[in-house]
């Protein structure tokens, strides 16, 4: 399997604070990876560091052979990173369709295909982003990232704060994306049992460091181990 993203010795944080230390991992083409860990261990910082909105102290991030470290967020985005931030941050004053077309880049994810994937967004295409429900905003955030036709999708707690029925809908959409579409993804999640079945590999963080790396199905088969790393949140 060829490597899509290779992170080596990454040390990063915000301002003077170092949040992540000695982060090294490889993500293969078409691979979906779960990033697990308790609250405040640096999961979001990891995603933000790949996107380029944190301060990097050391280490390298290589996407398809290109070093990302010296590049600004917009340059990284152009190389194929599709970000779904934790707060969703959709453009509230733009319509659903404008949210998608404002950032669209040529590729297989056309507007029609996005609407096919998320029919509810098509129904609400003319509504402003601010008028959407939480679940719809999350769908829009994912669709907006897909509209950039990314090579790697970065999802930061996509199910957080959503009603259970919406969570199921989103997870099945994510499963289709990574399984049927073969899109590479890095998915930060609090709830291991939801995301392990969808992903191929897992990364567990503790206090800014990687404490476990391995196939997701192995972890799923060993609840005790998962419990050790994650405590109650594993259930």
């Amino acid at each position, binding site marked *: 399997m060829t490597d899509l993203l290779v992170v080596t010795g990454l040390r990063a944080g915000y301002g003077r604070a170092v949040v992540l230390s000695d982060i090294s991992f490889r993500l293969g083409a078409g691979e979906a990876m779960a990033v697990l860990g308790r609250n405040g261990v640096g999961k979001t910082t990891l995603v933000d560091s790949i996107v380029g*909105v944190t301060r990097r102290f050391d280490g390298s991030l290589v996407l398809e052979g290109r070093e990302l470290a010296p590049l600004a967020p*917009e340059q990284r*985005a152009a190389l194929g990173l599709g*970000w779904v931030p934790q707060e969703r941050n959709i*453009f509230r004053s*733009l319509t659903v369709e404008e949210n998608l077309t*404002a*950032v669209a880049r040529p590729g297989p994810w056309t507007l029609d295909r996005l609407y096919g994937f998320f029919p509810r967004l098509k129904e609400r295409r003319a509504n402003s982003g601010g008028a959407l429900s939480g679940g719809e905003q999350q769908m829009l955030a994912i669709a907006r*990232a897909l509209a*950039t036709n990314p090579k790697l999708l970065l999802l930061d707690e996509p199910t957080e704060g959503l009603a259970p029925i919406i969570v199921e809908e989103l997870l099945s959409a994510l499963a289709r994306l990574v399984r049927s579409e073969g899109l590479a993804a890095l998915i930060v999640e609090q709830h291991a049992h939801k995301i392990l079945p969808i992903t191929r590999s897992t990364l567990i963080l503790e206090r800014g460091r990687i404490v476990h790396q391995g196939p997701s199905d192995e972890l799923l088969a060993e609840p005790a181990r998962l419990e050790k790393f994650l405590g109650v949140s594993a259930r």
Partner: protein
Amino acid sequence: MPSATLLGQALISGVLAGGMYGLLAMGLSLSWGLLRLVNLSHFALAFLSAYIVYELGTKYGVAPWWSAAMVVPLMFAVGASQYWLFDRFRVNELASLLITFSFAVIVEAGIQIYWTADYRRFETHYATESIKAGPFFIPVLDLTMCIVASVLAWGTWMWLRKTYVGKGLRAAAEDADIAAAYGVDHRKLAYILSGIGAAYAGIAGTFIALIATLAPAQIWAWLGVVFAVVIIGRLGNPMGALLAGMLIGASESLAMAVLSPAWAPVVSFSVLIVILLWDPEWL
């Protein structure tokens, strides 16, 4: 109470004069709403353009439309250069107000040095032409200006809604960091918008040269009312700016006809206060 004909004529003149408020407000509104830069030098650039059109017309006999063809690209370049400065020195909203105010004062002084403080008037045959519609007279020049302003407002409005650049600018105005993370290069787009805003000052200036009497201090004459128009029309909304301009122009003109000219600013700023209190979300 004045006659219906007088009121009708006041309404027509007011709407047409309001077209100038709208035209001046558009560039200011775009820069304020989408770049978060309050560009007071917009007025100075409009008057500088007016003086250039006047100079070319009176000294070299250049038709105003040809002068506009020179002034508008020149102003685009000035606007883009201004953005370079703002970007280079990371100027924020408040600082932009002070810096562009200073810039306007400098341009005013420059105009005074070159053209003196005397009143100047560019006499053309356009200024006296008018169409008669029933009992009303419609000045051709004012009508042309309003048509140009309407086309620009509508075109800009569509541009902001339909093009990649326009949508990118709106997305970046809402959240520049997030837009950047989706590949929207806000700075590149901002150069274009800053240039367009200043180019509109060039177009407004051309009409100012033809319609108004020029004096350096006139730069500040429309400041207050155009600010009100920008805010009533919603920041960053060119159609709003034009319609608000016409609304204020009409209400001022009616106040002058019914009461006295001294009432004009009372009416326009009362409209501003009422609208702000009524719907503060507009800001």
